[in-house]
């Protein structure tokens, strides 16, 4: 059978409806009518709202017809014209359906557009602001809980507080001992190298004593607590979050802030001053070991020098700082724990983040407090 040449008729059915009549063989064998005529008709007559196909006279077709139809349909969609596909050959409808079968879901994934330098900075700043906002929110809530505690209306279990006190205090002594003695010795060594030039080894005692009491005792104890207890708080609260225990508490009508956070802050606040004092004494003892062992200063000389040089205010400043550090470490640990996501990997992130946040808090607040102490001239009194 000789191929019948393809024919396209554009017939306006009425003012708003257009019909495309396709006839003949729409195959690669003969040049096809271009869709331009249809598109032009659509362009020229803006009143058209619907379009359908009549393919009764269509003899044969191949994928070229498909490309023609797709162009027409796209144009219809652009103009909001309703295209009725039911007049098309069955097979063609199937192919169209396949072509449009899996539209890309717009809401299923987060687009990862490549971030430019400015965008990256912007994102970091926004994250920083969000983080700051959550910190303020957390501190605010903790303060309210603390207020309720002062009014005697906070609700937590005494047994929990005792367990936490044990955890934050006595259980931390071995590691604090080791680190403090070594820090005291290091201070002694650093100073001794210079002081020996002048034959002034006796001032090792001043250096170690003042250094430990005013600064190092509090800082080292706090940093150890951040790594040990702050991380433990974050892990504990984080895994409670993962296990829905925190949600369970909320639905039992109970604020986790009072039950979980308050005793932790209290425990660290109460124990770090003791740990700080302990670290001070052991650090000074470490300095004595180094001085007596290597720099010809006897224990008695060292002791008398310390007694003359150190005053109560030196210890008070260090201990005061350590109480602040205790609160900050507890806040960092609890905040990161409560912000933890719902997967077990999130617990790891929360723990790491608690330590980093804790140490940042310690150093920043230390700088501020040292500045205040120096400005107020506390040591000169």
């Amino acid at each position, binding site marked *: 059978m000789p191929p019948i040449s393809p024919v396209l008729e554009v017939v306006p059915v009425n003012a708003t409806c257009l019909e495309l009549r396709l006839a003949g063989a729409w195959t690669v064998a003969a040049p096809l009518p271009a869709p331009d005529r249809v598109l032009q008709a659509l362009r020229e007559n803006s009143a058209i709202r619907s379009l359908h196909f009549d393919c009764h006279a269509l003899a044969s077709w191949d994928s070229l017809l498909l490309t023609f139809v797709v162009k027409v349909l796209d144009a219809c969609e652009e103009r909001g014209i309703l295209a009725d596909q039911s007049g098309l050959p*069955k*097979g063609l*409808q*199937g*192919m169209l*359906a*396949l072509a*449009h*079968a899996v539209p890309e879901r*717009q*809401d*299923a*994934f*987060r*687009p990862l557009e490549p971030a430019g330098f400015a965008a990256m900075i912007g994102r970091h700043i926004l994250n920083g602001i969000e983080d700051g906002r959550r910190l303020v929110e957390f501190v605010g809530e903790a303060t309210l809980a603390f207020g309720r505690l002062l009014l005697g*209306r906070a*609700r937590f279990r005494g047994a*929990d507080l005792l367990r936490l006190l044990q955890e934050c205090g006595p259980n931390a002594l071995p590691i604090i001992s080791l680190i403090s003695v070594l820090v005291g010795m290091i201070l002694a060594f650093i100073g001794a190298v210079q002081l020996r030039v002048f034959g002034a080894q006796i001032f090792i005692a001043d250096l170690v004593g003042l250094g430990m009491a005013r600064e190092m005792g509090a800082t080292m104890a706090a940093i150890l607590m951040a790594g040990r207890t702050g991380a433990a708080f974050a892990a504990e609260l984080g895994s409670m979050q993962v*296990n*829905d*225990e925190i*949600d*369970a*508490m*909320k*639905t*039992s*009508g*109970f*604020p986790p802030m009072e*039950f979980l956070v308050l005793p932790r802050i209290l425990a660290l606040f109460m124990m770090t001053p003791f740990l700080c004092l302990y670290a001070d004494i052991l650090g000074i003892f470490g300095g004595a070991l180094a001085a007596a062992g290597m720099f010809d200063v006897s224990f008695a000389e060292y002791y008398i020098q310390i007694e003359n040089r150190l005053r109560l205010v030196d210890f008070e400043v260090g201990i005061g700082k350590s109480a602040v550090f205790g609160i900050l470490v507890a806040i960092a640990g609890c905040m990161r724990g409560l912000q933890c996501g719902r997967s077990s990997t999130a617990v790891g992130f929360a723990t790491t983040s608690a330590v980093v946040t804790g140490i940042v808090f310690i150093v920043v607040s230390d700088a501020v407090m040292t500045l205040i102490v120096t400005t107020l001239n506390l040591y000169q009194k």
Partner: protein
Amino acid sequence: MSITIRNIQKSFGQFKALKNINLEIGAGELVALLGPSGCGKTTLLRIIAGLETPDTGVILFHGENTTHMHVRDRHVGFVFQHYALFRHMTVFENIAFGLRVRPKETRPSDAEIRRKVHDLLNLVQLDWLADRYPAQLSGGQRQRIALARALAVEPKVLLLDEPFGALDAKVRKELRRWLRRLHDELHITSVFVTHDQEEALEVADRVVVLNEGQIEQIGTPDEVYDHPATPFVYQFLGDVNLFHGRVHEGQARIGDVQLELPGSPERRDSAVFYARPHEIDILREPDGQAAIAAQIIDIRALGATVRVELERQDDHGIVEVEMSRDQFNSKDLDRGESVYLQPKRLRVFAERNGEENLGSAA
């Protein structure tokens, strides 16, 4: 206490978890939210509880707007999939927790708390476990304790998030019957989330089928099973066989085969018919025009039922048929045999977005 959910929407970043949910839950009803994972059912439950805030829409408890009410003021009991018992407390303390932590004015006396906890432990039939820690209990026991803990605060609404999801099949079956009995005893308005259709159909008064953040159908278990509103519901509630064909003069035409269709469906040149495995008969002889030729390719016995897998002779895919062991024995079927399939019941859905056209291209 009735719950009214109106126009609730919730997005996480770009992802739309819930798209305009409207739902009425009557007082004392036990409703199941059923859907595949990621369909938003847990999010909806958490919004009802107040653990999550919706982007738009309101939640009413007994006509009172609770959308912005704090979780602790809503008086809901929540049971979590992984129990969420407090690890460092005994069973007794876990249940007493919600009572002990009340402000002084409304806190019951110690004796009363003790009596109440023991009542609850008796209710969940675990009174003898009061002094154990959660780690010393089995999964089923833990979940019952979690339920007792949720009930301790005398909730007006009980919400359960895949309560039996982490348990093995046998315990699960036992517990869901027990939950149903418990609900009949207490009559607390309850909503539970599950992805297990069997669980939803067995336990709930009404089933809400969710898909991609939208409600597909709400109805009693019989309604959703016997009259599914959409192909999704039909496919989600059990295994299905699909047949492509057309609707003509009230009959289904699948290949050369003609089958009666119930109702009077309109003429359709391309349609998909659905039939469940147990709704298809296997015949040895063709019954006029109303049977599809097929060859048995596999037979599997699953306890009381037998599943037969057949390939259609016209190369239009695999069909699964389920029958009781007795039926199977009386038919004496063997692998490789040629037989005829006769659907006892066919279902055809109105077209949506041309999705049913898809198959006819083959």
